[in-house]
């Protein structure tokens, strides 16, 4: 923040200053991007055949978790945690898939809008319960994960339904040149269109304020309760988007929640969002999701046992967070 004001008052090359301050504020995300680039080079080295289909497959496979990670990031920045994201994804996915079965493309459009609205409602219910009952976020969302998963089972007992062809095509294939997968563009556009205006609004400032110091936020006139409910509602919207992306990429709805909830927590932490709240953004977690998936792919190329890949995922999670806290401790001592 202070670097940004410096850039205004001090004479000199403002652009360079602005870039420097941008880099300073997003060190972690930039480092992750650098690591991702290295990882892509490494992937190409160990598997020279890795090309357009690989990149497109990667983009499609990360889409649901990436959107789930954005949802989780928003709640975690506010100082909460949402353990019902996986269940909300399952619920929105089965509802959209069962409603779209055998319907016209125009009707499917309404289904998509309705599903997004439903996501906002689910998130609002979560947030309202957290604020009204004053029960810790982790407990409320844990219990609500049972409720939403149960509702998903009520809608569809077994995997079924269908996705409208245009929805499927939205994530398949590429844009302009074959190297840019449509799924990645969709992801970036969706996140940018929803998150960036929110981040720059009063609400965006409020969620960081509430996350970093509740009491201070309250005393400076931020409505803590309303901010939390809104954050959960936006998370619900992103969970619904993640659910829709599941429907789009698999063509059906599955009522049993995938491993997305805990993986989203892991991605958020690797993406530089502090579990204590108030720090981080949504783009770091996005890059972290891609890195985690690419490591998985690389391990398949290297013929590593998939079970050891799970071990590696846990070890990376723990190792990165440990390294982060060691750096933090050193800095504090110095």
């Amino acid at each position, binding site marked *: 923040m202070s670097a940004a004001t410096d850039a205004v008052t001090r004479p000199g090359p403002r652009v360079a200053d602005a870039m420097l301050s941008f880099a300073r504020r997003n060190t972690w995300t930039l480092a992750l991007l650098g690591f991702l680039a290295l990882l892509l080079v490494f992937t190409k080295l160990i598997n020279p055949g890795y090309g357009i289909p690989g990149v497109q497959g990667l983009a499609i496979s990360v889409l649901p978790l990436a959107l789930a990670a954005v949802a989780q990031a928003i709640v975690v920045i506010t100082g909460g945690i949402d353990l019902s994201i996986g269940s909300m994804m399952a619920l929105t996915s089965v509802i959209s898939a069962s409603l779209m079965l055998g319907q016209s493309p125009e009707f499917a459009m309404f289904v998509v809008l309705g599903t997004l609205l439903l996501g906002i409602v689910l998130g609002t219910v979560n947030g309202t*319960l957290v604020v009204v009952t004053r029960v810790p976020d982790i*407990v409320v969302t844990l219990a609500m994960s049972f409720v939403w998963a149960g509702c998903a089972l*009520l809608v569809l007992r077994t995997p079924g339904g269908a996705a409208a062809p245009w929805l499927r095509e939205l994530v398949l294939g590429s844009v302009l040149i074959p190297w840019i997968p449509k799924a990645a563009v969709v992801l970036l556009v969706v996140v940018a269109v929803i998150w960036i205006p929110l981040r720059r609004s009063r609400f965006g400032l409020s969620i960081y304020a509430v996350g970093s110091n509740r009491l201070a936020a309250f005393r400076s006139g931020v409505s803590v309760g309303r901010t939390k409910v809104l954050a959960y509602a936006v998370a619900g919207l992103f969970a619904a988007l993640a659910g829709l992306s599941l429907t789009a990429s698999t063509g059906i709805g599955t009522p049993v929640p995938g491993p997305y909830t805990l993986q989203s*927590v892991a991605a958020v932490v690797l993406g530089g969002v502090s579990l204590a709240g108030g720090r981080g953004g949504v783009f770091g977690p996005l890059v972290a999701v891609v890195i985690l998936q690419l490591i998985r792919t690389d391990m398949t190329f290297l013929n590593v046992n998939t*079970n050891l890949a*799970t071990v590696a995922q846990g070890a990376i999670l723990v190792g990165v*967070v440990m390294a982060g806290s060691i750096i933090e401790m050193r800095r504090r001592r110095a």
Partner: protein
Amino acid sequence: MSAVEEVRPARNPWLTWVTWRRLFALVIASELARPGIVSLDWAGVIVRAAVPLAILAGCQTLTMLTGGIDLSVGAVASMSGFVLATLVSGPGVGAGIIIALIAAALAGLLSGIGVGVFRVHPLIMTLGMGLIVLGLANWWQLVMVQAGGGTPEVIRFIGSARFEGIIPVNLVVFIPLAVLILLGLRRTGYGRMLYAIGDNPVAARLAGARAWQVLIVLYVISAVLAAIAGFLISGLTNVASVSLADSYVLPSVAAAVIGGTSIFGGRGGFGGTIVGALILTVLATLLNSLGYPEAVRQVLFGAIIVVVAAAYTRVTAES
């Protein structure tokens, strides 16, 4: 010292009474919903099912007292039951139990070092450790694919048999453990240290508590408890698989919270947690016996946990 004791709601007879009353209300509701269901046989089944959950909820209680949480209990419990089952035909039951306990303790040691020394958030540390343990257990499954084994007879007896057809045998394991935890929390310096660290970590450090040592020991204890629960679960279900106890993780957290342990640390106790585990088991059994489909049961289960936790928070806020 006296200040530490004053902030324990578990010692507050009014709160413990509230939790007990909730259990009685549920039992009465069961009887009203299905007349004739409440019997000695029913009670035996409930207790037998509640014991493993209570042990796992004990892991959560202990870690939550310090402001932590242990999400690796599911993976550790499944792994121990599974490792034991694979070792039965080779080294035997005794050696199998010891090896499984050592493996669990190692996982707990690593979690404890991460949380205590490197100050990794317990949620993340135990989540990562859970992934590591699950992956290694899967790998072990591939290595040991030829050695079938299965849950040993002794474990099956302890986990599922009942004396006189009523009193579950797994109480033989549970009662000493419960007494140990209850006395450990109330009467030992180590127990007080757990409350102190959770209540005010800075004050605890200034008072000379070495938090990192306490935390390392804590997560080892938690993992060993989880392993014992894993044996009992595989004995109860006669299954040994690497994901056997996964479904217990979320209820174990819920049981501790319903039992009055604060997730922010410093408040609570194991007594309430045992009642919490009983409440959840009675609830699950009641929903089962009503013949609702799985979906409705899940919805009601989640909704009731929110309501009970909310009511509890209200009571603590008032007193």
